[in-house]
């Protein structure tokens, strides 16, 4: 299956966009809501925006953030549902210079936002049944775009349907678990893994995945994952071992985010005539051909 460029005809916009709210949700984690009607109207799960966090040259580059949700419950006044559709929501951890500056930006201020960027998840429209149960695997900040994905996967499907999406959330400690309630509200079954065992399964979320797969009576039909590279590499291996199609959303440092600089590349297995050996590869841009890739396309280091 080739998912390259499936949505590349979406118009990318670059606008000064108003910050609606920007607040700490826990510890060092923040949620920012920005008014961006064009982006909100066309964005697909897995796509991202590239934000200039300051007006000057420090930091120089934009910061890419995946779109966590469109619109927002808390800011939606009764009877103004359409207005809420005009906003995009992002989650981020204030860990470096750029995200720290972003965390200090106030509601009412304007940020220069480019989006929606990249190729998002290829969404399977099948109804959820006992036999069709996609698994979502979230590691750390990788949880953010999977909420948007869960919403889309849920769309138009009866809450009473027997199938439930299974969401596996991995975090360093129980304090770092993100979006658990949001997934539950969407009717997902949520299981947790923490590195230190302070909640749920003790260990990596990829090990939790192995355990869950062995408990499945029938094969889950799809895996969607987002998180650090090491996790995605493991998910890639496990999914191929079990012959489950998996889509992975990769994180990467980026200089431009729009496909111009060729900086954020990963190795993809070469196709067709270029494929002379098993390790033959081509570089693909995370920002343009990605950030979502088919697990079996990636050649891991």
């Amino acid at each position: 299956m080739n998912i390259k460029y499936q949505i590349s005809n979406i118009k990318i916009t670059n606008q000064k966009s108003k910050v609606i709210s920007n607040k700490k949700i826990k510890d060092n984690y923040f949620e920012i809501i920005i008014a961006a009607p064009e982006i909100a109207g066309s964005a697909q799960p897995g796509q991202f925006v590239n934000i200039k966090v300051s007006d000057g040259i420090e930091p120089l580059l934009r910061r890419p953030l995946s779109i966590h949700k469109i619109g927002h419950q808390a800011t939606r006044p009764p009877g103004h549902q359409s207005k809420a559709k005009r906003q995009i929501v992002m989650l981020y951890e204030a860990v470096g210079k750029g995200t720290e500056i972003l965390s200090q930006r106030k509601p009412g201020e304007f940020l220069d936002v480019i989006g929606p960027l990249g190729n998002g998840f290829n969404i399977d429209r099948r109804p959820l049944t006992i036999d069709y149960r996609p698994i979502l695997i979230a590691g750390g900040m990788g949880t953010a775009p999977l909420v948007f994905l869960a919403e889309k996967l849920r769309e138009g499907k009866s809450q009473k349907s027997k199938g439930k999406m299974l969401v596996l959330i991995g975090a360093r400690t129980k304090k770092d678990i993100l979006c658990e309630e949001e997934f539950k509200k969407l009717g997902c079954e949520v299981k947790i893994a923490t590195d230190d065992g302070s909640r749920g399964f003790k260990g990596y979320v990829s090990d939790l995945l192995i355990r869950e797969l062995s408990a499945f009576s029938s094969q889950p039909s799809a895996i969607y994952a987002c998180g650090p590279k090491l996790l995605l590499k493991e998910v890639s291996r496990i999914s191929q071992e079990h012959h489950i199609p998996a889509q992975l959303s990769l994180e990467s440092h980026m200089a431009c985010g729009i496909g111009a600089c060729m900086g954020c590349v990963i190795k993809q297995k070469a196709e067709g005539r270029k494929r002379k050996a098993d390790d033959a590869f081509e570089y693909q841009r995370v920002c343009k051909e990605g950030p979502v890739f088919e697990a079996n396309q990636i050649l891991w280091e």
Partner: protein
Amino acid sequence: MGISLKVKIGKLQLNNPVMVASGTFGYAEEFKDFIDLKKLGAIVTKTITLKPRMGNPPPRTCETPAGLLNSIGLENPGIERFLQEKLPFLKKTGAPIIVSIASERDTDEFITLARRLDKIKEISAIELNISCPNIKRVHQVTRSPGHQKYGLIAQDAKATFEVVKAARKVTQKTLITKLSPNVTDITEIAQAAQDAGTNALALINTLMGMSVDVRGRKPKIAMVTAGLSGPAIRPVAVRMVWEVYKKVKIPIIGMGGIMDTQSALEFFIAGASAIAVGTANFINPRTTIEIISGLEKYLARNKIKDIKELIGSLKI
């Protein structure tokens, strides 16, 4: 009142002096959602080589104080696929197209590439990239035996002369030679390129740099060293444009950390006939267009009718 932004680079008449720097604008298509491409003075493509190049392993970029380190390694589809896949869109933009070329091995590749491009009428000019710091050091073929050296062509006046001369012989198109700041005396190289028949000089390419991840004691770029661009290098670039301007007669295309109209003006006053926006394209994809209107406003406000009056107008 009519304000003129027109400048001439070799045979090439530009409607305005604002171009883009090679390697920072892809093949223009990446920017079609942001700006009206035909308004650009000229579009300079990412560098093309004879054969396709994979480029360097990641990580390829890293942010530094007011700068950006990159080691992409001239990833490009090679001349034939460039002509088939990338040129059709470039032609449609309506802006003059300048194709940047580099050799992986020897002077002959420049000749082959220049010959191939010479036949294509929609290509306005050729830029000789003899100064990319991120490919394995080119084996310099200085024709005299015993004088073979490793290094950038643009680090050696004799090698620069030979490459420009060879390209000059096979094309009538406007030739631009892109110079490296990683030299002791850039004017020496600039003069060699002028003597060999280049129509213009583009400067500067990136400054060689390096950044270390102190936690892992690892280089932040896979290739260890990389090219530094962005506002951090602007004073170096302006200084070099000024030095070269005093020594050569041909036009200079100035670049290095241009972020806005103010920084572009520094280059004109120091002696550049045109400027190129590089790293700023990554941050604000509208930078070029904003500078074009900014230059018009600046000239109007200062009652200057022609941008050419500004070139090299530094008062000392």
